[in-house]
């Protein structure tokens, strides 16, 4: 089946929005640098660049062949008389990608940036202890296997998208801006990596204390938030046009919803930390901001601005408490807060679409099929479609990414040596510090 052709205006709008997406990657990279230690700052930025590069090449070589696009050839299982489309049947190396004005090259371009964004997310969790070559190895697996498989199910007419057509469950699993495919996949990979690496040395002491290891540059972190906003507006708008059939004019609503969700989430986090600790916490507020962006991604095209505000406020609350809970109760050392921000925020955003989503227009989810039904998300059964998507992330993506990374860790140790961790990733792995003119203070080192 040929891809539907876009009008020139739609193509131009899509290209403009897609070109904004790398700003999101830049923002996340800066945040990860700022939230880590100064002795690993250069390494973190280098790792971000390498992750983007490895992700793009892996996606070009293998990933897109397994992800495909709506209406393109795919393999399907027949289960109880229904077709379960599970993996694309494209050739490797983009060999069936024709630059003929169809939507497929736009999809490929957006995916190439999106997979890079997903690859940057786990870096924040593995900060100060994840080796560069291991990062490249793990990124290659993410971009060639985990991401394309799940993205095919959601964005390329796969079985999750078909739930509405095949079983009358809402409009099938919906995710306009990549809350599941990018954010939760990245966030769950971050969780798997954190489990495999273990905490930074000195993070948890035998007396039950877990001293905070503060980030080294809050200006980077806060500036990263603003850069991420620009990228997210592009990501949500381009995704909504390409994967749900939204008109370019809906970008205004999407931008408003994205901004409001981020604002509500950040202010909620600032308020909670002010009430609890006496002063607003910059790193938790910035995590709240990005968490709001993440939570807005799934439903940005199907909400009223007031609903975006509510979703953002809940995201800010959930993320603030989740970060503390993970760190202190579950002993998950996640310096960048990636698990809470991207996995928890993303899951909340996906479920919120099932609760708050309103479908005033037909939704393009599977080629040639627009599922009619109730306008309201809950009444149409959309909540169940979203729940099935979240269950797939927890029940399939998390074990898959954990097992694959665990096996790779057996062959090539992910964690840097004790001496390397003490020295800092910059000196140990790159041979030079990011801030050579700075004095290093003894309290930057863990007790020997």
């Amino acid at each position, binding site marked *: 089946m040929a891809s539907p052709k876009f009008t020139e205006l739609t193509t131009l709008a899509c290209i403009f929005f897609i070109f904004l997406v790398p700003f999101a990657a830049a923002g996340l990279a800066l945040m990860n640098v700022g939230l880590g230690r100064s002795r690993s700052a250069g390494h973190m930025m280098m790792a971000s660049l390498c992750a983007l590069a490895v992700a793009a090449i892996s996606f070009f070589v293998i990933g897109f062949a397994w992800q495909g696009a709506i209406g393109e050839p795919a393999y399907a299982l027949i289960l*109880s008389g229904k077709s379960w489309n599970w993996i694309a049947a494209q050739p490797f190396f983009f060999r069936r990608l024709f630059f003929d004005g169809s939507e497929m090259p736009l999809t490929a371009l957006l995916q190439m940036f999106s997979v890079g964004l997903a690859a940057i997310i786990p870096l924040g969790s593995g900060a100060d202890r994840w080796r560069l070559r291991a990062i490249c190895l793990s990124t290659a697996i993410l971009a060639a296997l985990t991401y394309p498989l799940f993205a095919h199910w959601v964005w390329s007419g796969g079985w999750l998208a078909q739930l509405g057509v095949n079983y009358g469950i809402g409009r099938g699993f919906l995710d306009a801006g990549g809350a599941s495919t990018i954010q939760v996949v990245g966030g769950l990979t971050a969780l798997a990596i954190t489990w495999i690496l*273990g905490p930074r040395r000195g993070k948890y002491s035998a007396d039950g204390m877990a001293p905070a290891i503060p980030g080294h540059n809050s200006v980077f972190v806060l500036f990263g938030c603003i850069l991420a906003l620009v990228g997210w507006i592009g990501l949500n708008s381009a995704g909504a046009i390409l994967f749900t059939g939204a008109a370019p004019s809906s970008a205004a609503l999407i931008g408003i919803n994205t901004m409001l969700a981020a604002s509500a989430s950040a202010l909620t986090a600032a308020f909670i930390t002010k009430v609890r600790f006496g002063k607003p916490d910059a790193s938790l507020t910035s995590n709240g901001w990005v968490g709001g962006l993440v939570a807005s991604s799934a439903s940005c095209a199907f909400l009223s601005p007031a609903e975006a505000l509510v979703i953002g406020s809940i995201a800010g609350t959930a993320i603030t408490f989740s970060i503390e809970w993970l760190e202190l109760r579950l002993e998950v050392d996640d310096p960048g807060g990636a698990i809470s921000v991207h996995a928890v925020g993303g899951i909340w955003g996906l479920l919120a679409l099932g609760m708050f989503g309103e479908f005033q227009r037909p939704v393009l989810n599977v080629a040639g099929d627009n599922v009619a039904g109730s306008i309201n998300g809950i009444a149409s059964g959309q909540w169940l479609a979203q729940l*099935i998507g979240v*269950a797939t992330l927890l*029940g*399939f993506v998390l074990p898959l990414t954990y097992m694959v990374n665990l096996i790779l860790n057996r062959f090539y140790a992910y964690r840097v040596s004790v001496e390397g961790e003490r020295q800092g990733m910059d000196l140990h792995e790159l041979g030079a510090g990011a801030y050579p003119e700075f004095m290093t203070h003894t309290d930057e080192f863990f007790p020997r």
Partner: protein
Amino acid sequence: MKAVGLLMLPAGWLLVLAAIVLFPSPALRGAFALAGFAVEVLGLGLTFRSHLIPREEKS
């Protein structure tokens, strides 16, 4: 405990998939899917517990 937790994640997911295929009634399908999701949450809880750091390994 780690293996059990990790196995409960796909087990819960398979229950959710079974709900889609086996139950045409929306109410029954929703209830069964929620039960599968609950199994996943239990599995996630076990996996988190299995990754708590032993006291002797804390520095």
